[in-house]
Structure formats: C-alpha cells, structure tokens
C-alpha cells in the first residue's frame, strides 16, 4: 500500500507539473489522476478501524471542503461580474464552515477514544 502510494504520488507529481493552476484542461491526465486517487482512497479507507467511522466521515467532510480552492479562484477573478464574485464568496463561506467545524469536531471526537487503563503497558 505504501509502495503503491509513493509510485502514484510520483505520477501525480508529473501530472501536476504539466499544467498551471488554470490552463486548458488536460482531460486524460485529469482522468488518470482521478482514477489513481480513487484507488488510493479506497485502499486507505478500507484500513480505517470501524471504531472511527464517525470521525472518518467528519474528517473527509473537512477534506472535501477543498472546494474552497475553486471558490477562491472564482471570488478573486478580476473581470468577473459582481454576482459571480458573490457566488464565489458564498462558496468560500460554506467551505470554511466545513473546514473549521470538520477538523475541530474530528479532533474532539478522537480525543475521547481511550485504551483500557493498563492495557497499553
């Protein structure tokens, strides 16, 4: 799993280097990245302890707030009409809500999971 992860990271690195943040879409490259990331995700998630499925979901919630990247790009656009900027700003607000609440509540929950006293020794 780790080996696969490193190899894939190398491929991802190659893909990421090819295009600037907002160039024309390299569709096939993007599709490759999508497929590889999905496989990594499936393998990593399968190993997640069932104990932690609720924190897992709130963590991935926070991770999917990566939409904030798109929201910033839209909101910061220079020649955009006002309503487009407004849409971007509302999207930033929504994503930030998820980032803040998602990470905080995940950590709050994880802090509660404790081993039986003495069992660790």
């Amino acid at each position: 799993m780790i080996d696969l992860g490193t190899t894939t990271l190398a491929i991802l690195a190659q893909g990421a280097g090819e295009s600037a943040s907002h160039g024309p879409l390299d569709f096939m490259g993007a599709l490759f990245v999508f497929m590889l990331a999905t496989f990594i995700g499936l393998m990593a998630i399968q190993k997640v302890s069932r104990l932690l499925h609720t924190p897992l979901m709130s963590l991935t919630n926070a991770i999917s707030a990566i939409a904030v990247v798109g929201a910033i790009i839209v909101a910061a656009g220079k020649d955009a009409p006002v309503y487009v900027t407004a849409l971007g700003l509302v999207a930033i607000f929504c994503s930030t809500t998820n980032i803040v609440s998602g990470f905080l509540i995940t950590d709050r929950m994880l802090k509660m999971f404790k081993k039986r006293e003495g069992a660790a020794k």
Partner: protein
Amino acid sequence: MTAANLVQLLYLVATGLFIMSLRWMSDPETARKGVFSGVAAMALAVAGTLAGVTITGGTHYWWILAAFIAGAAVGYPLAQVPLTAVPQRTALSHAFGGLAAGLVGAGKFFLYYGQRNESNLGPTIVIALVLEILLGFLTFTGSLLAAGKLQEIKWIPQRPVTYPLQNVINLGLFAAALALGVALVLNPLAGWAPVAFMLIVALSLAFGVLLILPIGGADMPTVISILNAYAGLSAVAMGFVLNNKLLITAGALDGSSGLILSIIMCKAMNRSFTNVLFGAFGQTQQAAAGGEAKSYKSDTVESAAQVMAQADLVVIVPGYGMAVAQAQHRVRELYDQLKKRGVTVKFAIHPVAGRMPGHMNVLLAEAEIPYDDLVEMDEINGDLPQADVALIIGANDVVNPAARADKTSPIYGMPIIDADKARTVYAIKRSKNPGFAGIENELYYLDKTFMLFGDAKAVVGELARNLAEAGNH
C-alpha cells in the same frame, strides 16, 4: 521554478498530506495525527490558491477574508454540538459542501458564458460543469432534508414519504436534467443556455429533496454515506472544470470514503444501493405486523441487577435508543459497577446501530469506555453463546432473529448480533411500540427475554444504583 509550478508544488504536498491523513485514521493511536496532517494540507491548499490567484492578478481580498471569518464564526459552534447530534451536523456539512460546489460551478458557467469564449466551454468542461451542478445541488437539498429528519424538526416527515409513481417521477426529473445537460453541451453559447442551466439547477434541487423524502431513519447511515460520496464527487467535477488536480485528488479521497462506508452499511443491512434509494423502507411491513397478539415478560430492575451481578460475561448491545436518551454516561456507571464485581463487560456494535456509521463508538468513547471493549458484530457473535446476559439498550432491528429465519420479514438476511444466544436477555425499551422501522421483534417474546420498560437513561441509571447499593452491604 516558475511561480505557477510553486503553486503546483504546494498542491502536491497537500495531496500527500491528505492521503497520510486518511492512512493515520486506521488506528485510534495515530488518528489525531491524521487531523493535524489534514489541517496542514488544507492550509497549504489555501495558501497555494491565494498565491496562484495573486500571480494571475486577483482581487476582492478583503471580501475573501470576510467570507473566511464568517465561515469560521459559523463553523466553530457547529463543532461544539453534543455528540448525539453528530449525524445531523454531518448531514448539514454535506449540504454546505454540495452548495459550495454548486455555486462555484454556477459562477464559472456564467463567467465563461459572459466571455462568449468558445474554447472555455468545450464539451468536456461543460460535461464536468453539468455534473458538478447536478451533484452539488442535489447533495445540498438532499442533505438539508436528511439533517432535518435527523434533527426531528416537526414539519419534516420522519417516516418515509411515498406516493404513486414515485420512482417514475424521480427518474423523469433526472432524465430531464440529463437531457438539458446534453443540449447545453452541444450548444453552450446559445441564447437559451443560461435558462437551460438554471433549469438544471432547479431540477437538481428538486431531485435532492425527492430522493431523500422516501428514506426513513433506519436507512440514514447509508444515506449519509452516499451523500458524503456525492459531495466528494462534486469536488472532483469542479477539479475537471478548473483543471485543478488537487481538487480531483481530495474530492476522490472523499468520494471513495463515502463509497466504502455506503457499501459497508448496505452489506450490514443486506440491501443494495438501489434498494435503499428506491425501496422506501419502513412502509412495506404493515402487512406483517397485524399477527396474533403475543405477550412480553417484563421484569424489575432489582432482579435484573441481581442477575447481572452474578454473571461472568455481560454483553451490552446499544442502539439508537441509547443516543436519543443520552444514556451513555449511565451506561458507563453500569459498566464500572459490573467491572468492580469482576464481571466481564463487552459492547456489541452493529455497523448500522445509530444514525451514522460509527455513531455508537463515539458516544461510548465520550462516556470514557475504553475502546478495547467495543467489539464489532462478527467478533462478538462468537462470544454470545457464552454470555450470561445480553442487555439491549435501545437497539431493535439489529438483534431481531427474524433476520435469520423469517423469509417474509423485510429485514430477512440482514446480519444481526446474536443476542438471543445469550443465557438471559434483558431489553430496555421506551414503549411497547415496534422500533423505527416498524418491525415486530421476536427476540422480545422468547422465554429467556425480560423487558425493562422505561427511558434508557433512567433504567440504566437504576441498574447501576442497584448494583452500587447491593455492594455496600
């Protein structure tokens, strides 16, 4: 190295950190590192994006800052909700995630349309845009409705809502949205394109509501997982629109997580995706319920406490009822009292117990019960024949033996916790009504089963107190 490459490099590190974040979740020992790495990844992503838009000449920074602050101001209290409310908080944040994706998609479409630049609205981009809109907005309304159902808001129906031709209407709406999408892909710059686009938005919003209306409480863990996957996939679609690989990778990680959780939930209920989404659980079993009236045996808390005190192994099976009654801290008291007497206490956790995946584990962890004693269904079932007592706290369908034997039961084939194999069964139940799914539970009529009627918190508290007092003699 160009500035654009630097941005990509930040994105790359962020992607790696997101992957590690999920890997560290495999063990409660390392899980908090996972949160830290997720936060670091997100910080890099935001920093990289801000740098990127600055290079290409961004603006509105004060407004962006204001949006960040407002989001943090709303997000912080949302992280402080009681843990029993975590399912609805999760649904609500799926709604926010879907809305964000939908709004970004809408913003991009109108921007490109306004520029009248055909190369920006090529077929692949428009396909991705339509998917982003569809997934984003249906996740938005669907998750809002799910959150409302979980919060038990009065005017939102809890029970599944069904009406004639439901699936035909839903599929019709979906087909209409797809047809509009195809038309848009073929003519992205047509005069009617904005209208078609807004119609797709409206159809997606409606579709989200209609999709969740017929789904009841027992299916919520599955539905939340599916919505989780949709929120991730809408971020992926956004990544295709913006040619942004960080969005694609992070969205795919979220999507695969939602997918795996949905599969686990479906397996734990012996149902398929389509059956959950289009099956309208909870309506079908009226026919089965009207059989001959059987009678329960109930028992007093005192004698139940005595039996438990003399047991070697007590298996506690918690369910949604424990969450509703907020009984987890009383459960901890009972656990302590039994442990003090040398009784082994284990918790049997069914994957779909509660209203979201892992719900019971979090509540019991909150009550500081060591996670070594929280045992998964498959593992605990081997121990149950040796158990002296199985104590059911607000669980119902997950211990219903009808799932094993009764082919007419709607839950037939669902894997269950074998509570009926324990020597004695005590079941704490609020009332004599059947559970959320409305299915009669044969377990309650067995000779070895005794009912303890009452609020779970009160009954468990009584049990613990009885044990404590008996110990003082």
